[in-house]
Structure formats: C-alpha cells, structure tokens
C-alpha cells in the first residue's frame, strides 16, 4: 500500500514538473525552473508564474478532485459506472457556471462563478442519487445519468446560443470537453477553497464506504449513519466537481478510469481507493494536459477529447465484463 502511494506520488511529481517545463516557447528546463523560483529579468518569470504554474496546479487539483469524487461515488453506489462526468454532475456544474457567466453573476462578485457551478453540481448529484436510488442499480443509474447529462447539455447550449455575444456559441465545446489553456492564478484561488472543503469531506468517507461493502444493514449495525454519509458525499462531490468545472469545463471519464484501474491494486477497499484515486486522477489529468500541448500544440485540443479516448474503450471493457458476469 505504501509502495503504491510512493509510486503514485512520484508519478504525479514527475508529471507536474513536466507540465511546468512544457510550453510553446523554446526555453531550457533549467532556465524555466530558475525563472519560476528565483524570478529574474525578461518575460520568462511572468510566463512561468502566471501561465504555466496555474495550469500545472489546476491540472493537479482538478485531477485529484475528479478521481476522488469518482471513487467516493462508486464506493457509495457500489457501482463502477458512477462517475461525475458520465452521470451528469459535471454537466450540471457547467450549466451553473454558464448561467453565472451569462447572467453577469460571475462579473458581479468574485466567487459567483464557482458558487453557481457548486449549486449546479449539487443539484446534479442530488438528482442522480434520488433517481438511481440508494443501491444505484446500473440500469437506473445510467438512465438517470443520461437524462441529467442530456438536459444539462441542452440547457447549456441553449444559454450559449441565446447569448448576444458571438463567442458564446463557440464555447459549447469548452463546457462539454474542458481545457486548461490560459488559466491564471485567479482561477486557482477561485477553485482551491471550495476544493479543500470537498476534499476534507470526501476523505472522511473511507470508513463508512468500507462498511458499506458489507451491505447497508451491516453498515448500520456497525454504527455508520447512512443519511449523514450520503449528505457528506453529495456536498463533497458538489464542492470538488463544481469548483473543477467552473474553471476548466467538464472533463469526463477521469473518475471512471482511475478508480477502475487502481481498484485491484488497493485490494478493492474503498477507503484506500479514495486517496489512490485522488493521486491517480491528478496524474491522468496532468498527463492528458501534457498530451494536448505536445500532440497538436497549435489546435488547442480539449482535455475531454483525450480523457474520452482513454476512457471510452475502458467503458466498453466494463460492459463486456458485466455481460460476461450476467451470462
């Protein structure tokens, strides 16, 4: 277990450093890092501190958030398909963020944007949990997810299409696919407080989720208060997913792929899966964000494109496995 933690942390550290030193301008790694830490003359310190550092930090924070939220939801619903992106939580958060921007709420006060996204994500999680029921049977979960995703996406597109601003309509792809391009430290400070609250909340779920693997009755017999667990899950997920989506759009599949890959490595214990998925999610988003800068740097590829390219085949694999189990 500690070996896994070490390996994952090392991976995240390497990817974080790579993210800091990757960019369109030709500068050496050494001068990049000295400009970051020591400052100096010329434009490089500005590039490092105002452009690359926030991008790397956001990759780390958002990846950890999505991984953690995915692992927590999967643990609670005992269903490997529960994922913030797939079941519409990210989509509802995006709707909240778009509403905040286009009603002027985001411009009116600083935290307007993340709080609106938080409200959107909260509504999304609540709806999914209500519609899917506490057991989260696959079919109801997926149907609820499809309904909420479609509704959120349609309303987001509607708001953007109705905007008087000609750029708004082209932003649909950002809100559906996510991107970390040209974010600033402002965005880091907007998202961080909410994320910390969410991380703390979700991290406390470990014991309850472990107990839940024995079934709800057993968990209650062990002194787990299910309503409270459920509330913490809803609020925690809404905080992390809302904050992540507000600044980077809806990045899908991270919360699906990462817990799925790491589950065998942690002995399928939900409590261990929580921190492992947080690290794994950070690694995945950092890697995807590196890839969009290396593969087609001039095209501003969206992050969700890459995570979906990795995630969709895995999804098919899950279906295949489920069918084999049912047969």
């Amino acid at each position, binding site marked *: 277990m500690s070996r896994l933690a070490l390996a994952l942390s090392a991976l995240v550290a390497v990817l974080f450093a790579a993210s800091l030193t990757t*960019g*369109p*301008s030709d500068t050496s790694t050494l001068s990049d890092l000295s400009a970051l830490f020591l400052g100096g003359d010329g*434009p*490089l310190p*500005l*590039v490092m501190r*105002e*452009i*690359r550092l926030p991008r790397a930090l956001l990759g780390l924070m958002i990846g950890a958030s999505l991984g953690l939220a995915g692992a927590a939801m999967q643990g609670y619903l005992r269903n490997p398909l529960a994922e913030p992106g797939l079941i519409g939580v990210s989509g509802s958060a995006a709707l909240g963020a778009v509403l905040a*921007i*286009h009603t*002027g709420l*985001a*411009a009116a006060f600083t935290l307007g944007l993340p709080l609106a996204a938080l409200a959107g994500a909260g509504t999304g999680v609540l709806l999914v949990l209500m519609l899917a029921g506490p057991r989260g049977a696959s079919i109801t979960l997926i149907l609820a997810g499809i309904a909420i995703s479609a509704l959120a996406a349609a309303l987001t597109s509607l708001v953007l299409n109705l*905007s*008087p*601003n*000609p*750029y*708004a309509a*082209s*932003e649909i792809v*950002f809100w559906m696919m996510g991107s970390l*391009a*040209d974010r*600033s*430290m*402002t965005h880091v400070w907007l998202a961080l407080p909410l994320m910390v609250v969410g991380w703390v909340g979700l991290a406390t779920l470990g014991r309850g989720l472990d107990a839940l693997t024995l079934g709800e009755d057993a968990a209650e017999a062990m002194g787990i208060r299910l309503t409270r667990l459920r509330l913490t899950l809803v609020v925690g997920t809404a905080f992390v997913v809302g904050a992540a989506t507000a600044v980077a759009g809806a990045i899908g599949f991270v919360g699906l792929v990462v817990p799925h890959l790491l589950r065998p490595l942690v002995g399928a214990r939900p409590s261990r899966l929580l921190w492992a998925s947080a690290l794994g999610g950070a690694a995945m988003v950092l890697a995807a964000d590196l890839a969009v800068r290396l593969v087609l*740097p*001039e*095209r*501003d590829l969206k992050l969700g494109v890459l995570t979906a390219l990795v995630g969709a085949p895995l999804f098919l694999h899950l279906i295949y496995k489920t069918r084999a189990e049912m047969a």
Partner: protein
Amino acid sequence: MWGCVRLSRLISLGAAFALAGAVTATETGADPAPRRVVSINLCTDQLAMLLAAPGQLISVSDLAADPHSSAMADAARGYRVNQGRAEEVYLLAPDLVVAGAYTDPATIGMLRRVGLRVEQFDTAKSLTDTRERIAQMARVLGRDDEGTALIAEFDARLAELKAKAGNHPRAALYHPNGYTLGGGTLADDILRAAGFRNLAAELGHRGGGTLPLEQLVMAAPDLLISAAPLPGASRSEAVLGHPALDALRKGRAGLRITSPDWICGTPHVLNAVERLTDARRALPEGGQ
C-alpha cells in the same frame, strides 16, 4: 465494376452540369443591370451599398446593421434586413442575389434550384483582393464606372498612407480565445500597409489560428491589438484580462480595436490602416 462505370458516368454528368452552369453564369454576366438585388453576406452587403444605384439594392443581411460587425451599420438601416434564409430571399423576388463564398451551400443550392441568379464573392485575403472584389461587385451590378472610380480612390488613399511608412515595429493581433491572424490574411496585409510587421506571421502562422499566450508574452511585441469587448459576457474574452497580458500591456502600447473595418475587403480597410499608422507614429521609437 459496374459500380465504377456508374460512378464515373455520374461524375462526367456532374461535370457537364457544372460546365453548363458556368456557361449560363457568363451569359447572365452580360445581362443588363439587375434591378432588384438582395445581399445575404456581411461583406457583399457593404460592397453593394457602396456601389449600387439608388433603389437597385433592396435588402441586406441582418449583420450589416450590427455595429459590432459592420462598418456601415448606419447606412444599412435604410435597407430592408434579411436573415439570409432561402425562403425570405425568394419572396423578395430578386433578379440577383449576392453571397459570400462560404455562405451556407444549402441556401445557395436552394436559391439556384428555384431559378435565382446567385453571384458568390470570395473572401478578400489581401488589399489587392479588395480591389478585385470592388471590381467584381461593380461588374455584377452593372456599375463599372462607379467601380473604377471607387478603386481609383482606394489606390490613391492607400498610396498616401503607405508613403508614411517608417521603420517596422512588431504588432500582434490577439483576439478572444487567443485567436490571431497570420500571413495570407487581410489583417496581415492591413498591418503591413500600416508599416508593421505581424508577429503571428513571423512565428510562421498562415491564416487564422491560436497564438499561445505564452508565446505572445515571450515575444513582447511593440503594439498589442485586441478586440474591444462585445455585449454579453463570454469565457472566450476572459483571456484578454489574463494577469500575464495585463503585465505585458504595462510596458507597451496597446490598442483596443472595434473590428468591423478589419473584417471585409471593402474600402473601409483603409480606415483600419489609417488608425494603425497613427498608432505606429505614437509609439516611442516606432514612427521614425
């Protein structure tokens, strides 16, 4: 095998139709001047308004009346506005429809099928193209004399503006979403006519594309040209308030432009050239 033969026959048939179409087009080009002209593209709107005889142009597109897109929004208020849909255009009973090369092909196809004459205008990618578009519009409207006069005026004013060129400071166009215009674009030609070098073209951009903020900050151009904010908020425009861009603006000249003059190949591009020339002369050491 049969499929191949069939396909090649279809292609030759298609080619025959295309040729026939071309012949009709040249024939109609010789027609007397059209009397009811409808324009469904922002750029043809403006060219037509500049060149048409009174009463000849009966409708322009809705964008022509939008001050954020059109350099002739006031003039456009005197015309009936259309949304560029085939049905409403047909009901206006025009004898000529002028459209852009990239106007929705479904609309163009429909208009041609119902027997309307449609002339398409290619996008102007340079100041030379602009002269040609003016000439083309004058030709299809049967207003060649007016066209020649407008082109002569254009040439004279351009020559006058170019004579003021000094050394060549670097300018960068940075629009929402980090969009920039490199070589082979009208904007690039406008910059060069005003005596600037275009940063995006120097970095190897051709046509439109995104300029990473990082590259812009590293290159530190002498003049930063960005679009004026549009009504209604958008995430795309947020990048123009990025702290790194603010820091860059402190050290150098910035220009917030309203872009209508830059969009279309019309004589209005010279207003853009003129504004830029003034901006260049106001630069600390750029003018001389």
